[in-house]
């Protein structure tokens, strides 16, 4: 029971921490000042959510939230690979933001029914805040998809890079049987993946974006990143021996992009592990 809760909440927390870290990299660099403010705020929310999740773990295991966030080895992180990818360009960051926050909404809606009362309450609280992330992401995808052809093309390219990795947010979790037996999640990861996929494809249809770019990837066992050789190249490291590029984050298999992020994110903590913030 305890290990099931820790497994579930670690995956949730690591996703929020790592995507929050990536969003924060837009601070000072976004295409205009309102977006600088928006991405910085979203980053702050996500990292705050990670801190709340880590505190929940700390109550169960006695470890410190700082240790959870900054004191672990790269293979101990359970975030999906999607969250750790470099920001690349603005279109990639927007599409990832939209896919991630849509997936997070599906996940939080389910978590509100969790048998763990603290987790359910936290999910309810977070979902009220996350709706602003969705509002932001939806407004941008709508605006760019209705604009000049270059914007549309770049959104479609980014969808090709992100979509399969977004589905991997719902890869099976460690101790998933126990998570389900104890009703920590009211339904399986694959059920959630189905809900997400249905919602995302239907909303993409509404945006007039061609949903068929990714629909057929849902159950593909042989997915190859369709439009980006660099995604495949980054997986050549033997330690990330994932069968599909971008898949395996839930089992601790990460890309080289993660290793660089981890190195920077944890550097101060590794130099001064006892420092108080």
């Amino acid at each position, binding site marked *: 029971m305890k290990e099931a809760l820790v497994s579930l909440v670690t995956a949730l927390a690591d996703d929020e921490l790592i995507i929050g870290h990536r969003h924060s990299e837009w601070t000072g660099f976004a295409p205009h000042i309102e977006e600088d*403010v928006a991405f910085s705020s979203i980053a*702050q929310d996500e990292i705050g959510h990670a801190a709340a999740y880590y505190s929940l773990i700390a109550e169960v295991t006695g470890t410190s939230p700082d240790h959870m966030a900054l004191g672990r080895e790269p293979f101990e992180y359970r975030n999906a690979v999607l969250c750790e990818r470099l920001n690349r360009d603005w279109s990639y960051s927007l599409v990832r933001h939209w896919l991630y926050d849509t997936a997070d909404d599906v996940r939080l809606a389910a978590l509100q029914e969790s048998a763990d009362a603290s987790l359910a309450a936290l999910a309810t609280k977070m979902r009220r805040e996350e709706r*602003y992330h969705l509002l932001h992401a939806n407004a941008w995808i709508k605006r760019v998809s209705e604009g000049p052809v270059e914007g549309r093309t770049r959104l479609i390219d980014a969808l090709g890079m992100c979509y399969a990795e977004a589905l991997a947010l719902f890869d099976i979790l460690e101790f998933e049987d126990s998570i389900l037996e104890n009703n920590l999640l009211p339904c399986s990861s694959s059920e959630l993946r189905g809900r997400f996929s249905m919602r995302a494809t239907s909303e993409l249809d509404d945006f007039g974006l061609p949903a068929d770019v990714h629909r057929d990837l849902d159950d593909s066992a042989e997915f190859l990143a369709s439009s980006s050789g660099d995604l495949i190249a980054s997986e050549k490291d033997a330690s990330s021996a994932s069968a599909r590029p971008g898949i395996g984050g839930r089992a601790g298999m990460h890309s080289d992009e993660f290793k660089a992020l981890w190195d920077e994110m944890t550097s101060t903590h590794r130099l001064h592990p006892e420092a108080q913030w």
Partner: protein
Amino acid sequence: MVSASLAETVWTALGGVMDPEIPAVSITDMGMVLDVVAEDNDVSVTILPTFTGCPAIDVIVQDVEGAVAAVEGVESVRVKLVYDPPWSTERISPEGRTKLRQSGLAPPAEGPVLVTDIRLPEVAVCPFCGGRDTANENPFGPTPCRAIYYCRSCRNPFEQFKPV
């Protein structure tokens, strides 16, 4: 023994603990205090954080500890943070709404907040001129709890406390 009168004194003292990011309003104006229990001389205060990622929360906890410890008769104080019930902008008191407006921050629209509704309220009333012809410039602002608007009547940008 539970002391109702000590709890009441503590509530009054908490009315003097200001929100570090909006110094015009207190944490009781904001509806952040869920409960105060005084048992003998030991006081327990339950606080509802406004936003999960709010960096002011540590300061608020310290300020609450200080304010309660200063109340005559209090020997120990414990502050608990809980998310159930979730804090909502509906908890802001009428005085709190007035003070927000006076400090140039539009209070959130009145009434229940629908989680399924991802639109911002169409109208935020300008805290400077009372104009309703306003436009949302950004659902995010300088702190997690604020959005940025522009008033077409008096041509001032202003911030709104976002409904959650």
